[in-house]
């Protein structure tokens, strides 16, 4: 099938809109982009990662050194900022991407997806299962992809509502500030264990290595580095805390903007039955959303701002996503697959809107929304603004 045979389908909002042959052609075009790009991977990518590693480590050294002299207020501020920046780079542009095996080709055992250990309390081994496997395979399938609400937030009508869901905005702010701990706990599926749906032995088996790692990281940031500063210990402690919280809020924001802005599709188990490669690709595109912005923003998000490209090609060196984005978007447009994106502000606003909307019980009427999205949105926007203000007042 050639491209011209495929009529543009502006309102192709369901997978049924593309037939088998169209999905196969869609997959073939996306595969071709992948193969063409991966053939280029080599020296340039290795240099990118090595330069970034050097920058990240120097930034971290500078931040931690400045915090040792935190009694000079500008140094405290600079130190916490640099350390937060370094941690964001390590977790997102380095750790997350290395753990996907994007840089395995370099043959460096320490930068290998199967061996790298990152500055994040969730051990790499468990992350590779919950993220690389579960999240990337079952993206946005409610009940399968545990990143939908992180076992804490109700992000979709199909998720059960309880009176406790009314406190969701508070949980969301809590999860944002303590995202590192939230992700670790989410991997343990503590919520399932507490309700007896997961054997406690399993939680223990996962929990022990996690606690061991978390303890080492906590001791480093909150005991050893503060002690090094002697009388300046409280300032190092607060500086490290500020850096970690800032990094948490940033990671939370980027990740929620990846899958939960307005319009991003959610799925149920039925979408997995006999799902072809084309349908899987379609779900990855329609279940993700990009963030538009300058290059430094992409680097700071670990190129998760190109969430769509990342979900199509998780093992492609992430800095190449901007190179392929135009082409991917054109292919999606040709097949009527919704390719969503927006500025950071817009994506944040609509992601929080989703969190707040599902605080209240009830199912949305999908037909009604499709027919007249505009008035609904503006009505919602008003209620969201009100709720947001309320949520932030509560958090403060």
């Amino acid at each position: 099938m050639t491209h011209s045979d495929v009529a543009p389908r502006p309102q192709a909002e369901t997978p049924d809109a593309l037939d088998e042959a169209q999905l196969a052609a869609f997959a073939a075009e996306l595969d071709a982009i992948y193969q063409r790009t991966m053939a280029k991977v080599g020296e340039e990518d290795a240099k990118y990662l090595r330069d970034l590693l050097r920058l990240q480590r120097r930034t971290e050294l500078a931040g931690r050194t400045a915090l040792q002299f935190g009694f000079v207020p500008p140094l405290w501020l600079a130190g916490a900022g640099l350390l937060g920046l370094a941690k964001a780079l390590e977790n997102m542009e380095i750790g997350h991407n290395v753990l996907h095996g994007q840089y395995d080709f370099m043959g460096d055992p320490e930068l290998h997806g199967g061996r790298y250990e990152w500055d994040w309390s969730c051990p790499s081994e468990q992350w590779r299962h919950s993220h690389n496997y579960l999240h990337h395979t079952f993206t946005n399938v409610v009940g399968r992809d545990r990143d939908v609400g992180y076992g804490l937030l109700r992000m979709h009508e199909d998720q059960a509502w309880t009176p406790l869901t009314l406190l969701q905005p508070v949980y969301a702010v809590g999860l944002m500030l303590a995202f590192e701990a939230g992700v670790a706990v989410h991997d343990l599926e503590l919520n399932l264990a507490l309700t007896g749906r997961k054997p406690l032995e399993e939680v223990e088996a996962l929990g022990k290595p996690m606690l061991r790692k978390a303890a080492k990281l906590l001791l480093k940031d909150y005991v050893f580095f503060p002690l090094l500063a002697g009388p300046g210990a409280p300032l190092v402690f607060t500086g490290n805390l500020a850096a970690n919280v800032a990094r948490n809020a940033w990671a939370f924001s980027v990740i929620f903007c990846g899958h939960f802005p307005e319009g991003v599709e959610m799925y149920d188990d039925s979408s997995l039955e006999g799902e072809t490669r084309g349908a899987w690709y379609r779900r990855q595109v329609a279940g993700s959303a990009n963030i538009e912005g300058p290059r430094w923003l992409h680097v700071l998000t670990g190129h998760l701002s190109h969430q769509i490209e990342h979900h199509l090609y998780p093992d492609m060196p992430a800095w190449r996503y901007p190179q392929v984005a135009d082409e991917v978007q054109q292919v999606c447009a040709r097949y009527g697959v919704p390719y969503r994106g927006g500025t950071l502000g817009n994506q944040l606003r609509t992601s929080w809107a989703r969190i707040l909307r599902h605080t209240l019980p009830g199912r949305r009427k999908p037909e009604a929304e499709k027919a007249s999205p505009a008035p609904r949105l503006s009505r919602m926007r008003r209620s969201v603004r009100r709720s947001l203000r309320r949520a932030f007042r509560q958090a403060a």
Partner: protein
Amino acid sequence: MSSPSATHTNASPLRRTASAFLRTLTYPHTPDDYLQALRPSWTLDRVVARVVDVRHETGDITSLYLEPSRNFRPHRAGQHVLLTVTLAGVDHTRCFSLSDAYRPGQPLRLTIKAHEGGRVSNWAKNAARAGVRVGLSQAQGEFVLPETLPEQLLFVSGGSGLTPLLAMAHALVGAGYRGSLHWIHTDRTEVALLDEMRECCAALGAQLHVHLTAPTATDATDAHNPRLTATDVASCVPDFAERELFMCGPFGLMDALTALYDRADRADHVHHEAFGPRSPFVTKLPTADGALRLVLAKSRRTLRAAPGASLLSIAEDGGLNPPHGCRRGICHTCKCTKRHGTVRNELTGAVSDAPDEEIRLCIHTPITDVALDL
């Protein structure tokens, strides 16, 4: 580059404590990750080196002179190192014997024979230049002279297998060895470092026997001169069984000599270093039916394999790049858990069907379908 090595047994307690403390402060990374970000040559655990000289010995053989970082521990003659070079962004690690004894303050020497398709060995021959940085490991291996030098020694080497023995010869010269040494070396056309071998032997009053199988370059067939056999060694050095044997050369010759020593009930006086696997591995997969399956659990891939191909090369042909180093079973970088299936160790010939067993991918070939934790 190479993984951080365990805390040195011979480091001072102060240095050990400082090192442990720095590791705590840099967890989950290493102190070297931060030190090298400031200056590539600053390391605590990782060994790095700078090429200071490149000398072309004979056609295919090149000596690299390396200035290692200060944490390099003196090697014993006969040991080897893992050399890591980065080519087009990709790290390649191979094992090479040090071809000289340790001399404080002097560069290390690796003598490398370029072979067809060998990325690192051809880099050494064609592209290595003074000033280039490389990764290195501490010296390793048990192919070393005993602390108390034996009265009578026999060295047998073939081709580039002379390198560890040349280091031993230098060590013997340095130690003022007064015993008796015979050195039998076999090569195809010409011998690299022959002058140096001769000088060492002269200083030791040792006998050097050189056996060329293809004396002229134009007539490079093995038919011209037969291969060196164990019988040749026995007739050349009649009291061979009285001697402590150190050998590094062709497998057939080493097997036959081991058998001779066995018969003389002197098996524990044989020391050998193996260069490469017993049989060359198939690297291209046949398309014919009957291929075995290699199931990779972590990457959720199933690859077609054929008996005879190493697990590492099957994975590589399938587009994966598992961590690996020497490709000859020495460095254990490619160690991986085999979930189930039967494999053969091509170095030892041992067949194993144990589940959940740690194996080295580079020297194991599948006999049945195999599932790996990869």
